[in-house]
C-alpha cells in the first residue's frame, strides 16, 4: 500500500496550512523569552518602567547629560548617550527578555523583562 497515492492535491494544501497553523500556535503560545516590559534605571534607582507595545522615546537624565531610550513594539535600544565610548548605543536593539544595555559613564541601564525571568541576577 502506497499511502502517498491516496493524497489529492488539496490534501497537501490542507496539511501545509495545518502545519503552519501549528507552528504559529507554538510560536505564539510558547514564546516565554519574549519581552513585555522595559525597566530603565538611572543612578541605581528605577527611573521608569514601560510596556513594549507602543513606540516611544524616553529621555533619561544622568550625570553627563541626557540618554535617549527608543522603544518599538517588542524591542528597545539606547538611541543616544553622552558616554565617551557609546557601548550601550552600539549594542543596538534588545529583543529578548533578560537583555540589558548599560551606559556606565552616565549611570543608566536598560533591561527587558518578560513573563518568566531566565535568571535571578547577572554579575559582571
Amino acid at each position, binding site marked *: 500500500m502506497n499511502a502517498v497515492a*491516496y*493524497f489529492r492535491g488539496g*490534501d497537501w494544501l*490542507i*496539511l501545509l496550512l*495545518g502545519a503552519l*497553523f501549528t507552528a504559529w*500556535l*507554538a510560536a505564539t503560545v510558547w514564546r516565554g523569552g519574549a519581552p513585555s516590559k522595559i525597566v530603565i534605571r538611572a543612578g541605581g534607582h528605577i527611573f521608569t518602567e514601560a510596556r513594549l507595545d507602543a513606540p516611544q522615546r524616553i529621555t533619561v537624565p544622568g550625570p553627563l547629560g541626557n540618554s535617549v531610550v527608543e522603544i518599538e513594539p517588542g524591542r528597545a535600544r539606547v538611541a543616544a548617550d553622552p558616554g565617551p565610548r557609546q557601548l550601550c548605543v552600539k549594542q543596538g536593539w534588545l529583543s529578548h527578555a533578560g537583555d540589558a544595555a548599560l551606559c556606565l559613564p552616565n549611570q543608566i541601564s536598560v533591561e527587558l523583562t518578560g513573563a518568566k525571568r531566565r535568571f535571578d541576577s547577572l554579575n559582571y
Partner: protein
Amino acid sequence: MQIQLSTTPDDHRIAKLAAAAIGLTLAEAAIPSPLPGVKPGLANIVTLVVLARFGLGAAAWVSLLRVVAGSLLLGTFLSPTFVLSFSGALVSLAALALAQHLPARWFGPITHSVCAALAHIAGQLGVVFFWLIPHAGVAYLLPVFTAAALLFGTLNGVAAAFLLARLPALQPACGERERKNPIAIMRAAPLK
C-alpha cells in the same frame, strides 16, 4: 404483549457501521495515551467512510451513536469524558459538513479527516476552557494537540481512503441482498 419496532435497511446499515465504530473505540481505550486527549480516534475512519459512501446524515448517526454507546460500554456516560467526546464529535461533524463541499477533485478523505480532527480538538478544548479549567494555562498544550490532530487525522484519512478504494463502488439500490449479506452493506446506495 410484544412490541414490534419496524426498521428499515438504512437503520440496519447505520447500526452495523456504528457497531464497527464502537468496536474501534473500545480497542482504542486499551491503548495508553501520553497525554489525556491525545489519541488516534480510529473510530473516525468509519465516520469518514460513511460520509463518503452514504452522506452526512448517516455519518452523523454513526458518529453520535458511537459516542453514546461507546461511553455506555466504557462507563463514562454523562461524565466529563463523555461531554468532551460528544462536543468533539459535534464540532467535527460541523467541520465535515463544510469540508464535504470542497471540490472532490482536489480534496479527499484526508482533508476531511484532518479538518474533523482539528475541529474535534477545538471543540474539546472549548469545553475544557469554558467549563472544566477556565485558565489560560490550557493554551500551552494547544500546539501539542494540533500536531497530534494533524498526525492522526492524516493517518485516519489515509486509512479511510484505502478502505474506500478497496470497497466496491456505489451501486444504485439497497435491497434484499444487502439485508441478507451484511458484507454487502457497503455497496448500498447513499441515504436519501
